[in-house]
């Protein structure tokens, strides 16, 4: 019954979304029509939420007559993973996409702010069409409520690798980000139809963009952290096509966050902001297509049904076609930009957009190139980390060199000399870091430049705060408390980028790695530590059996215990690795247990890594996400305070 109720709610949501599209697009200035549009949008979100709740209920009840539940759940699974299993599969995740889209539509409909009623109404209408497209796809090509007859006694279980708290939160975060990009898209299209994109429009756009960017940052960081501790080889970013699928919209959102500032504060760049909003959503849809269609050689792609791939491509073509078409037709009507010097806050933000867009383009080329070559009959190839490291890293490096100048320059006409003089201490220390790293690391350029840039970004952020405190009269400490939240949030995000750079460079350039065979009682010296295998035994978990190695780690005077496991789930023939991680000041000691070594008798293969400063990577990403969140709070508070 619950499944049928869910399917019914889904159909209801589709009908309401279509009505929302028609009502919204047939915009009028009448209050009554606007109220009706908002009510329909809210009802659509309630219906879609109910549908999603039904699916969650089926997972919690372990109703194996529902195909998705039977394929992805199991009675023995802990409750958290039964719930997380709802979106750990294709059908459920698409329903989540729909739900988020309708919820955002309702939120957009409920907050008109200072926008003109016709613009707002059209944006709500387009958002309704976006939801309708997603709902049509879900209902007709990946119905999560399809029944199985006869129903199996037990389910196939969720892939044990995916039974993890970080990965339970990873898809919803990414989807909030992906779908979040649909609201700027709707607003951009509405502005094109209106033929006007003013500062009030950009003001409405900014919170959505910030929210989407923050969620994408957090979602990508969670996925990366999961890969780091779950996959058992210490990697955190692989330039896997599926990772690129989330990284491209992130770059787009990041550029949009910055260009929307220019449009809101200065009224210029409106046409570029609109184009970015369209492309950002296009990249988010492309990400969905790449992940969902199974076209990629990837360890992630789990949907294999060409009809689905084609359907997502059609939706992508509709969104981009209507977006670019409208843009070509209407963008010339948008007002002339306000003038500014190249050396100014605007100029720096344009640099930022330029760099991020090129980076996104390069990632797009690298991701699609194997597909194009294969379609052209050129054989199977893969474009891996060497390509992306070669292309993306220099572009990001150029971007980072310019970054600290942005906040230091004033709007319209900036004083480059003064900014340079203020940033001089950061520059000197960054160059010193660069020189010292060069001298200490056999003149290797990559770690030297990378660490130098990290120091430059971090100190650049600190100097900006100091410069803000020095401005005007009064004691610096007294001003610390009244510094606007927006200053803190931006600086935090920029420093986060520096911390992430330091961590990424340290981890990739200085990691130590060693594979050893250890018998119980034997020791090995690794990275200033003495590691002893104390014993290996069997342990029972809630729905698995584990082989657990107990280790003792002596580091200076510290002695600590560590364990690493291999887990065997009853539902899966494949074991999973649970690594042991001991975080220290110099990095993570990371231990993975391998197979028994056959020729050596009772010894076990153990792989040891020292990942220097690896926590800076995740810490830096968290700082960026927190910066985005605080920025969003600052923005909303300012709105609430404004008349």
């Amino acid at each position, binding site marked *: 019954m619950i499944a049928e109720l869910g399917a019914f709610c889904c159909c209801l949501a589709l009908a309401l979304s279509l009505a929302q599209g028609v009502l919204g697009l047939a915009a009028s200035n009448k209050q009554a029509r606007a109220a009706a549009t908002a009510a329909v949008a809210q009802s659509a979100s309630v219906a879609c939420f109910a549908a999603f709740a039904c699916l969650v209920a089926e997972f919690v009840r372990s109703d194996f007559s529902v195909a998705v539940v039977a394929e992805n759940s199991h009675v023995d699974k802990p409750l958290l993973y039964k719930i997380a299993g709802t979106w750990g599969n294709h059908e459920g995740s698409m329903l989540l996409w729909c739900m988020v889209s309708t919820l955002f539509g309702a939120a957009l409909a409920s907050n008109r702010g200072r926008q003109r009623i016709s613009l707002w109404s059209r944006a709500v209408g387009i958002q309704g069409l976006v939801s309708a497209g997603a709902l049509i796809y879900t209902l007709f090509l990946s119905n999560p409520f399809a029944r199985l007859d006869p129903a199996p006694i037990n389910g196939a279980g969720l*892939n044990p*690798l995916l039974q993890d708290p970080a990965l339970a939160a990873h898809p919803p975060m990414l989807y909030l980000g992906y779908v979040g990009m649909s609201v700027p898209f709707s607003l951009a299209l509405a502005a094109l139809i209106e033929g006007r994109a003013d500062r009030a429009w950009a003001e409405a756009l900014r919170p959505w963009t910030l929210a989407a960017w923050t969620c994408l940052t957090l979602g990508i960081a969670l996925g990366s952290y999961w890969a780091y501790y779950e996959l*058992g*080889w210490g990697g955190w970013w692989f330039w896997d096509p599926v990772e690129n699928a989330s990284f491209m919209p992130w770059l787009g959102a990041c550029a949009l966050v910055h260009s929307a500032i220019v449009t809101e504060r200065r009224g210029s760049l409106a046409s570029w902001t609109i184009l970015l909003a369209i492309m950002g959503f296009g990249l988010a849809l492309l990400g969905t297509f790449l992940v969902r269609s199974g076209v*990629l*050689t990837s*360890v*992630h792609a*789990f949907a*294999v049904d060409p009809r689905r791939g084609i359907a997502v491509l059609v939706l992508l073509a509709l969104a981009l076609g209507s977006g670019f078409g409208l843009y070509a037709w209407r963008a010339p009507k948008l007002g002339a930009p306000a003038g500014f*010097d*190249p*050396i100014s806050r605007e*100029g720096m933000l344009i640099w930022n957009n*330029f*760099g991020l867009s*090129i980076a996104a*383009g*390069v990632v797009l*080329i*690298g991701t699609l*190139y194997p597909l194009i070559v294969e379609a052209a009959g050129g*054989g*199977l*190839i*893969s*474009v*891996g980390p*060497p*390509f*992306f490291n*070669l*292309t993306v890293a*220099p*572009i990001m490096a*150029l971007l980072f060199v310019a970054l600290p100048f942005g906040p230091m320059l004033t709007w319209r006409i900036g004083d480059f000399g003064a900014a340079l003089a203020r940033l001089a201490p950061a520059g000197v220390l960054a160059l010193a870091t660069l020189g010292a790293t060069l001298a200490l690391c056999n003149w290797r350029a990559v770690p030297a430049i990378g660490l130098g840039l990290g120091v430059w970004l971090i100190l650049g952020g600190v100097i900006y705060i100091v410069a803000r405190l020095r401005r005007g009269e009064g004691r610096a400490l007294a001003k610390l408390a009244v510094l606007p939240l927006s200053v803190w949030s931006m600086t935090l995000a920029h420093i986060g980028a520096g911390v992430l750079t330091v961590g990424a460079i340290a981890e990739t350039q200085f990691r130590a790695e060693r*594979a*050893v*065979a250890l018998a119980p009682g034997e020791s090995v010296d690794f990275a200033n530590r003495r590691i002893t295998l104390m014993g290996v035994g069997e342990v029972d978990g809630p729905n698995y059996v584990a082989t657990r190695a107990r280790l003792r780690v002596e580091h200076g005077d510290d002695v600590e215990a560590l364990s690493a496991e*291999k887990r065997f789930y009853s539902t*899966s*023939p*494949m*074991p*999973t*690795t649970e690594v042991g991680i001991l975080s220290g000041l110099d990095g993570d000691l990371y231990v*993975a247990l*391998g*197979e028994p*070594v*056959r*020729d*050596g008798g009772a010894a076990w*293969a153990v*792989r040891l890594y020292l990942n220097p400063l690896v926590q800076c990577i995740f810490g830096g990403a968290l700082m960026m996400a927190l910066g985005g969140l605080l920025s969003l709070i600052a923005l909303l508070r300012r709105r609430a305070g404004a008349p």
Partner: protein
Amino acid sequence: MRRRNQRLAMIGAAAAVLVLASALTLTGLRDSVIYFVAPSELAHKAHPGQRLRLGGLVVAGTLRRSGDGVAHFQVTDGRVAVGVRYAGLLPDLFREGQGIVAEGIWTPGQEFSAERVLAKHDERYMPREVAEALKQRGEWRGAR
């Protein structure tokens, strides 16, 4: 006048960055792309010392470890079996008789020296390259 010079300098810098990015992309696509080969194609398609992805099924009964923990096994596409050596920990999903992709360097007359071994992600998934190679050989027994 100063403003125009600034603008010209900015446009020049932007063009330089664009040229740099294009050059890097083209170089990258020429040099950093890794070709996929099946074991039977190794002899006539690959250059010695070239970085490759070798895909196929692990031959049952060939996995052994030398004393230093290095794994040795054979990979086949149904026609030719090639020996592979790998010093790292094999992935959790590595099994004899199943599809894997080994990325590394091939030298004629020696074992394929793998630096990365990718196995299928779960029991239903096979690296696409392996599936394609097996389909071409008529060795495909999967559902899809």
